[in-house]
Structures are given as C-alpha cells and as structure tokens.
C-alpha cells in the first residue's frame, strides 16, 4: 500500500501543519520509503501477544486530585507570543 498526495494533504491537515505542494511531493516519497520499512513488522504473527505500551508494565500511577504547586501567572505568560491582561491572545474564534 502506498500513500497518495491526497493522503499527505489529509495527514498534514490533521496534524495542523501547512504544507506546500512541492513539500507534499517530496514528503510523499520519503513517507512511502518509511512505510515500506515499517511493513516488515506488519507480517509478524502476534496473535495472543499483549501490546506493550510501556517498558515496566502495569497501570500508570495517578496522583491525588488536589491542588499542588502552581506556576506564577506572570512566569507562565512570559513566553507567550501574544498576551493581554493576564490572558493568552488568539484570533477571534466565535463571531
């Protein structure tokens, strides 16, 4: 199975990365090379094998649902590309 240019455009949209047609064409052949490599593991018989999500197994630890340390608001906003009145600014979403 090989990807098409439409697939690349669709994936790039899902990933929210703008991509030019030239980039999409270059990416297409690279992705197909990589998926040809990946295909080697698809043929393996894994019936009855439990998926391994994590090297040490078991469920992930959950912490108690209580407030702990917080980052100071000014410190949290210091790296924001746009901010005002202690809030992150983004383009208007709801007209």
């Amino acid at each position, binding site marked *: 199975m090989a*990807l098409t240019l439409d*697939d*690349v455009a669709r*994936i*790039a*949209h*899902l*990933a*929210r*990365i*703008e*991509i030019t047609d030239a980039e999409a064409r270059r*990416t297409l052949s*690279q*992705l197909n*090379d*990589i*998926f040809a*490599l*990946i*295909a*080697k*593991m*698809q043929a*393996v018989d*894994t019936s009855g*094998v*439990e*998926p*391994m*999500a*994590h*090297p*040490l197994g078991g469920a*992930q*630890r*959950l*912490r108690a649902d209580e407030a702990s340390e917080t*980052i*100071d608001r000014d*410190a*949290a906003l*210091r*790296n*924001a*590309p*746009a901010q005002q009145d202690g809030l*992150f600014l*983004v*383009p208007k*979403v709801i007209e």
Partner: protein
Amino acid sequence: MTTHLASLAELARQLQRKQVSAVELAQAYLARIVAHRDLNAFLDIRPEVTLAQARAADARIAAGNATPLTGVPIAHKDIFVTKDFASTASSRMLEGYMSPFDATVVQNLGNAGMVTLGKLNCDEFAMGSSNENSAYGNVLNPWDKGAVPGGSSGGSSAVVAARIAPVATATDTGGSIREPAAFTGVTGTKPTYGRPSRWGMIAFASSLDTAGLMTNSAEDAALVLGPMVGFDPKDSTSVDRPGEDFTRDLGKPVKGLRIGVPKEFFGAGLQPDVEAAVRAALEEYRRLGATLVDISLPSAELGIPVYYVVAPAECSSNLSRFDGVRYGHRAKSYGDLNDMIAKSRAEGLGAEPKRRILIGTYVLSHGYYDAYYIQAQKVRRLIADEFRRAFEQCDLIAGPVTTSVAFGFGEKAADPVAMYMSDLYTIPGSLAGIPSMSIPCGFGAKGRPVGLQLMANYFEEAKMLGAAHQYQLATDWHARIPEGFR
C-alpha cells in the same frame, strides 16, 4: 592549566581537598568552551550564571556541607528545560524560550552542587542520528571535523570527547546517547527507562525517552548517576525505588561473568573495522575471565520498523503542544485560529520533526491504529521478551553500537531510511527499556572511534558499569584525547 585532563573523579577529589576552587574550574572550562566554539556544541552559555553557581559551590565546600560532586562542572543537553538558560530543543519553535522551572534531572544535579556550564546542541527535539537536524547548525566531531558527532546528543558527546566539559547530560530514545558516544569515543550511559525523571525533559516519545550521561569513563558515570536519578512524583512513569550506590560493583572482577553475544548483531551491514574492534574487546573480556555465551535475539531486526511506528505516534501527540498560543513561534500573518496554528507549526518545526509528526498522525488515525500502533506494541513485547529470556543465560549482553564509524556530513541527510538504520543495534534495548551503554573500544576507518555496547537486565546498571570499569582498567581507549584538545 591542565584541569581538563583530570577525570571527573579526580576533579571531585581536588575540590574536596580545596586544591582547586569551583570558580577556578568554571573559569577554566568556560575558557575552553570559547576557545573551541568552532565545534558549535553550545547553544547558550551565561558565564555570570555559571560563576554564581560556582561561588555558591565554593561557599558550600567551605561550610562543610558539600556533596562529592559539589563544584564539578556539567553541561546539559538542550532537551532539559532550565530556568537560567534558554531551552530550545534545538528548534526554531522554541528560540529564546525561558522555562519557568528546571527539569528534575537538572534540579537534582544542581542540588548536589554541580555547576552548569551551559546548554548543548542536539538534533531538533532529539530526533536524529547525526546532529544535522539542529536548527542551529551542525556540531563537529572532535576526532575528525569532517565527521558527524552522532545524534541526537551530538553536543553532549562532542564536549566530553573534547574535554570541554567533564560530564554532560544526554537523552536516549532509540540510541541518542550510545550512538554519539560511539562516534566520539566517550562513555555514554542510558539507565533503565523510568529511573531518571522525565519531568522537564522536552518530550519526544514518552514510553522511550530516558535521560543519561556522557562521561570519559564508567567510573565517572557511576558517580553522577546516583544523584541524577530517583523517584519523582511529577513523572507518572517514574520508578519508585530506593536510592542506589552505582559505584558498588566498580571494584568487582569480571571473572565468571557471562557475557551474551547476540549473533544478530554481527550480521550483514556490520562494517569489518567495527567488527574487528568489537571482537577484540570481547576477547579482552574473555582474557579477564568472563565467559562469552552465544545468544540469539531473532526479533531484534524488527526494532527499527517497530520504533518508527511507536516513536512517531508518541511524537505526534507530544508535539501537538506547539501551537503558537502559550509559548513558541507564532507566524507573523495568518487568518483564523486553525490557520495560525498550521502556519506557526510549518514555520517553527524542521523537516524531521514534521516527517515524524506526519507518520505518527497517520498510524494513529482512524482505521490504521490497530494495523500499525497496536501491532507495533505487540512486536515490541516480543523483542522485550527475547531480552528477558536471554538474561536467563547471561549477565550482560555485548555487541557493536553502530554498523560503522561516524559518517561524513551530508552522507545520509537526504535519505531518512538510511539515517534511521544508524540505530539498528541500539533500538532493541530502547524498546525493551533496559539499561545500556557505549564504551570506547578502538578506532576504525579514518581513525574514527568505535564503541562497544553493553546491555544489562532491568535495574542492573551497577553490574553494567562495573564490567565497563574493569575493561577500562585493562585498556586505555577511554583515555585517548583527540588531537588539538589535549
């Protein structure tokens, strides 16, 4: 001043005996950093921060409440966030980013009194095997400035090889500590997954990312690893185990140690110069009294295909946080919110992170999840189970780190699959999550270094470091210093 020729263990002793001050050490290394800036290994140095830390270390030594590492300089891979130095992950996306907190690893080493020299170049978001994916340029290999220093921890390997820092932090997701260590002739140690905290390590693939060290010897690694690791409630995959003295087996002879040699690590593709050096190292272990055991890891060759599903899947999820809203690059002009995000990511991310995000997005998308992601997780278990069975027959596993010595700039840059094959022998251990390391074991083509890989069962770092130290007592490959850096 020849401070830089002393081992970390020796520097620590001199500091304790007040034969040298932390400020003098910091100044000596800062001067070397400037003198060798053509290596392009550092992305951020701030001498005033370093010297303030050094003065605090001297005060602590004077007050008698120092640790054995107080005053020893260290440089951090720019994957660990730091309050006092910019944290960029070598990406335009995070240019100038100042973290409101220190990564736990940085904090732990700071608590021990270590002095930070600066932040080290690496492949963007730790994705790469040559350091050519940095948005801030190549790092040069101190052994041969026409060769890559390996990646992703190329800055870390280069500065330790060049004796510009006595130790550097690094991270390993599929080989990013061991491969650059092999390419630059240093000792690169990746502990068991979950031992070091991932808090504040800019995330690439969360089920694989492991912090570790570049040093000039196994002894130095054993000294720094203890204070570096430990349970961290802020990391949901942090392992809750009591602290350990990783130096405890350094004096233990390898007589009777069973070293497994996987036949799959000596197949087609392994270059004869690397094979010769690795076989000679195995022979040295046999001479020291270890027993070599033939073992088989038949699924290891599936490591790369499995890795290039699992790691990109996790990367596509982790890198979704870079949206130009809270931090990071935002495009100058855009339309609506979606357009702002898509343009900011297009401009801020480099080609390799984008490629991996696209692969990951695809394998996680509706209709493909089971065929790719779940299947990869199942084969991952087969690989891990083979390691478990192998460790019933042997105490350690040994083999090559890489198929070849360091390659030249541009040789693999245009072919992602060729670059991915650089991690053929390191990825299986990463998928299993076991500790492993690279130690220098000779030189191959063009006088470029060769590494020997040692792998141990879960949580057996001390045994692995002990065996590495015994080899380093019997050989001097780890003590060789590249021309121009002595």
